[in-house]
């Protein structure tokens, strides 16, 4: 019951959705639409589970005084503040439990949730990702040491695309006469993106697609069952 019933559910749902693609009439089309709606709701609970799991793990780390446990308090406090503010006063488009938000909007210039989003979340996330620019620079150094034909191609392609997509590329080949316009860096970059890059991406997409179809069939037919856990 604990293992067989979930496998039956997966098989039934998967087969109904596949059949509904080919027979979009009653009852398959209707069932499939119903399942999409349910999927959305259960996925919402899955996201909530993720956040609550984070909360629980942080609580455990704090209670066990794990290394650097003090920092986890900060994560818990910021999480709780964001959730409480969101529930009480709502977001820009959604009203919260407390109806009267005008005094706070007059004070902050926007709802408190949106204030935290704009000045804390936005700044932190964009800085966190911009930090990667420095690490990408060091990775570039390692990747661009052309030691084999493959890495040479990677280097040439990356440099041409970067130069062709920035103003410096236009500036470097700006002197090339109109008759040799195909040697302009922006045109070379366009050619790489339109044909060479598309060829590689297309091969990846077709093969990855075949892989996904194979994996999906394994899941639906119950061959792949690792998602049920080990117990």
């Amino acid at each position: 019951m604990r293992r067989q019933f979930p496998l039956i559910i997966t098989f039934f749902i998967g087969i109904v959705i596949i059949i509904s693609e080919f027979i979009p009439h009653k009852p398959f089309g209707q069932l499939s639409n119903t399942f999409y709606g349910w999927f959305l709701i259960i996925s919402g609970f899955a996201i909530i589970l993720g956040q609550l799991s984070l909360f629980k793990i942080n609580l455990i780390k704090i209670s066990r005084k794990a290394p650097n446990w003090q920092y986890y308090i900060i994560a818990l406090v910021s999480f709780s503040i964001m959730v409480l503010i969101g529930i009480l006063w709502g977001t820009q488009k959604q009203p919260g439990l407390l109806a009267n938000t005008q005094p706070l909007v007059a004070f902050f210039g926007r709802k408190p949730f949106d204030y935290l989003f704009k000045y804390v979340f936005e700044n932190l996330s964009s800085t966190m990702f911009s930090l990667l620019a420095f690490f990408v620079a060091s990775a570039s150094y390692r990747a661009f040491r052309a030691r084999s034909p493959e890495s040479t191609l990677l280097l040439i392609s990356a440099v041409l695309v970067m130069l062709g997509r920035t103003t410096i590329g236009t500036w470097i080949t700006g002197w090339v006469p109109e008759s040799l316009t195909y040697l302009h860096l922006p045109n070379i970059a366009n050619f790489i993106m339109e044909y060479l890059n598309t060829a590689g991406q297309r091969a990846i997409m077709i093969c990855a697609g075949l892989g996904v179809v194979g994996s999906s069939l394994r899941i639906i037919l119950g061959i792949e069952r690792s998602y049920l856990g080990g117990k």
Partner: protein
Amino acid sequence: MIYIMERIGVWVGAILTFAILSFLYKDNPFYKIAEQIFIGISAGYWFIYTIYNILIPNLFTPVLTDFSNNRLLLLPAFLGFLMLCRLLPKIDWVSRYPISFVMGTTAGMSLILFLRSDIIKQTSETMMNPFSAPDLAATIGQLILIIGTLTGIIYFFFSKKHEGVFGTTARVGIYFLMVSFGAAFGYTIMARISLLIGRLNFLLGDWLGIIKP
């Protein structure tokens, strides 16, 4: 008052920006604090986003406003509740039922979606007459596109040893993949650098007011 709160917000943003950037020197308490704030705030943001944009419009509002026509929604709500039971070790096995529902739906949807958009669409786009292109450059480009796609697919075929003519073809496929990876890598670098420029714009413009937008 709004102006003062905006300035406070900008100062908080600037301090957090420096705290994150301090990681470039080495891991330090300021970075750790900013990192944990980021984790907490983003988890809280997605929590609220999920409630307001997924659960309320798709579950709570239909059930509370028109229960008789939406009573079936109690079933996914119950499955969602079982999903949350994963947090309780003694009965965490009940979460297998909603997980199996999600897996079945995802597998069915992915199979159809990838079959349609990634396999059939991309294959049919590759089946073209390269000589129907308007000029020589486009003809050469389309020939390259066909050869690159075919050799790339051959590279991913691992059921046969890559040797002889098959191996050489697969090798050509690797070259096309490398060019593709290079282009993607170049784009990634540009995206990260543009984010960094955005941060400098914030610090020098919004915070210090040295540069004007």
